[in-house]
């Protein structure tokens, strides 16, 4: 039993370790994904691009200024188409800057909102672009001066914008660093949890194993003691037969001799004593016999002699054997076997013993004028034998001990003779014969025993504990049988 428990423990522990590792694996994977998302999030942050983009935007502005200044310099040729191309490239750069700005994540609680920061630059640039377009189409001095001023304003605003984005970038970098450190700490925590959990489980398994080993050692010792006790008991019981029977036979014999020496008148005076001694001796002999019989049955030392027997005949024999006892106890036996001849394959001696015992109990535990009903009923391949009495019955709280040996169910100090082994012997025999014996309380007082026997003997049940040793005192000895069904197992 403990070995199985140990295996279960091991299985549970291994399953738990696997579960923890799977859990840890998923936890670590989740952490890794979060870290990856943070890093990817960082990679799509275009703060760096925007800073550089703003710088290049200012460079583009300077190029436009250089080309524009050719207008005011009499020594350099002013080419409007070249200025237009630079203006177009500047616009293209502005558009890229604008698009990237819109995609940059905002940090609301810090007041860092790139689109808002870009808004003023956007407004100033649009004015500049319009002025540039007008100037390229109609160059004039007023426009030239105005454009130079606009270029300075836009360049300054681009610097402010660049500073804001730089601040944003620094904040995001700090935030990402904190996130990565947090994830790293979670990694550490998860690994520590897994490590400690595994150690705990290993400890539990080790402890369980240690305890189980101790239990097993105790169990083995107990089994050894049990075997020794059983051996001692067997030796005692086998010697008891001789040691008890010899003095009892001597007592009985010498009482007979003493009676023979007495005159008829003297005999009349001691007749009561002689009967009492005789009865006591017989009871003691019966008790020894029953104990020995039970021991023999329990150890399976007695072989079965199987034969086909008529159930009605067996019941009649049992009733007949109990007739004398019924008369003595003033109990009436009623039989009801109104079915056709039904043969079952069983050991007739043991079977009769069971029926006789059940009837005997019905008689013994009854009152004057009581009744015992013995009936049988065939159902398919089985016969149901019912032994019912209207005697004193069995208290409900003692039914559980009904089939235990030496259990007299409250009659230990009563006037009814017996060793308390009868029903135990019946139960043992029934088990060996492949039958079932059940008890049902009788509603109006008394007991009902129901015995169910199959038509064919279940060889598989008997195979393991039978010995091929025929009884020498039975009529169904294997050597004398002509019936081809007879077999000894």
């Amino acid at each position, binding site marked *: 039993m403990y070995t199985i428990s140990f295996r279960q423990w091991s299985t549970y522990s291994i399953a738990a370790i696997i579960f923890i590792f799977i859990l840890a694996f998923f936890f670590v994977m989740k952490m890794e994904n979060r870290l990856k998302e943070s890093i990817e999030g960082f*990679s799509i942050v*275009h703060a*760096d*691009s925007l800073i*550089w*983009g703003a710088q*290049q935007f200012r*460079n*583009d502005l*300077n*190029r436009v200024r250089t080309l524009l200044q050719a207008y005011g310099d009499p020594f350099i040729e002013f080419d409007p188409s*070249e200025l237009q*191309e*630079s203006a*177009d*490239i500047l*616009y*293209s*750069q502005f*558009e*890229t800057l604008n*698009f*990237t700005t819109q995609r940059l994540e905002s940090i609301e609680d810090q007041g860092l909102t790139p689109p808002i920061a870009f808004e003023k630059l956007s407004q100033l640039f649009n004015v500049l672009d319009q002025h540039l377009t007008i100037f390229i189409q109609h160059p004039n001095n007023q426009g030239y001066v105005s454009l130079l001023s606009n270029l300075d304003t836009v360049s300054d605003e681009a610097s402010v914008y660049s500073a804001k984005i730089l601040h944003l970038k620094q904040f995001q970098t700090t935030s990402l660093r904190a996130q990565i450190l947090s994830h790293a700490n979670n990694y550490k925590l998860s690994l520590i949890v897994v490590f400690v959990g595994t150690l705990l489980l290993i400890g539990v398994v080790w402890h369980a194993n240690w305890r189980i080993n101790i239990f097993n050692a105790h169990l083995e010792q107990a089994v050894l003691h049990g075997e020794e006790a059983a051996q001692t008991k067997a030796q005692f019981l086998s010697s008891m037969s001789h040691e008890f029977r010899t003095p009892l036979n001597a007592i009985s014999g010498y009482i007979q001799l003493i009676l023979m020496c007495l005159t008829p008148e003297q005999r009349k005076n001691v007749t009561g004593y002689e009967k009492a001694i005789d009865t006591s001796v017989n009871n003691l002999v019966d008790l020894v016999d029953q104990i020995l019989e039970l021991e023999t049955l329990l150890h399976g030392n007695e072989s079965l002699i199987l034969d086909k027997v008529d159930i009605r005949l067996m019941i009649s024999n049992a009733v007949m054997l109990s007739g004398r006892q019924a008369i003595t106890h003033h109990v009436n036996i009623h039989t009801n076997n109104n079915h056709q001849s039904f043969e079952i394959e069983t050991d007739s001696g043991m079977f009769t013993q069971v029926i006789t015992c059940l009837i005997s109990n019905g008689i013994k535990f009854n009152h004057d004028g009581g009744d015992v009903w013995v009936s049988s009923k065939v159902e398919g391949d089985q016969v149901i034998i019912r032994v019912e009495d209207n005697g004193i019955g069995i208290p409900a709280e003692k039914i559980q001990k009904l089939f235990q040996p030496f259990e007299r169910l409250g009659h230990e100090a009563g006037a009814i003779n017996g060793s308390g082994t009868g029903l135990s012997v019946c139960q043992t025999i029934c088990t060996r014969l492949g039958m079932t014996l059940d008890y049902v309380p009788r509603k109006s007082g008394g007991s009902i025993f129901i015995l169910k026997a199959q038509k064919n003997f279940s060889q598989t049940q008997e195979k393991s504990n039978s010995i091929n040793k025929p009884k020498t005192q039975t009529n169904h000895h294997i050597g004398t049988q002509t019936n081809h069904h007879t077999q000894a197992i």
Partner: protein
Amino acid sequence: MLLRELKLYIPAFVVLLAPQIGYAKDIIFIEGLSQRTAEKPIKMSIEEFEALAPASQIKTTTPWHRQSTFSGISGKDLVKHLGIKGTTINALAINDYQVTIPVSDLTELGVLFATRLNGKRLKLRNKGPVFVIYPFDQNPSLKTEVYYGRSIWQVKQLTIQ
């Protein structure tokens, strides 16, 4: 990280380094190892460039656009109609930014030499006249700095090597 991000802006940034802009608008030069340019470089207007092959389309987002429909000459068609024999194409932008694009990108990755954005001709102000576009949405593995860097705009010259 900074250098990689820089690639996105190099096409526009390098304009300062360009010694002279002297070029004609909406004209593209093609030269190098192809059947049509074997003897001498060819110069074609953007209309002639568009007439090289039936128009192809890509609907995608880019780091510089929301989801838009780009149309122009597919890389496969360009290889076919020019009879490209080289393995790489050097693309030069108006601001003298240049990148090297493997011909295998044209034949296998579905590169588009876009001349139109949502049906309208790309101008210099919106990164025309030719914009090299990769199908980023159709193939997310292209969303890397390598392919962002190869997505050159304001292309004025292709040199097949």
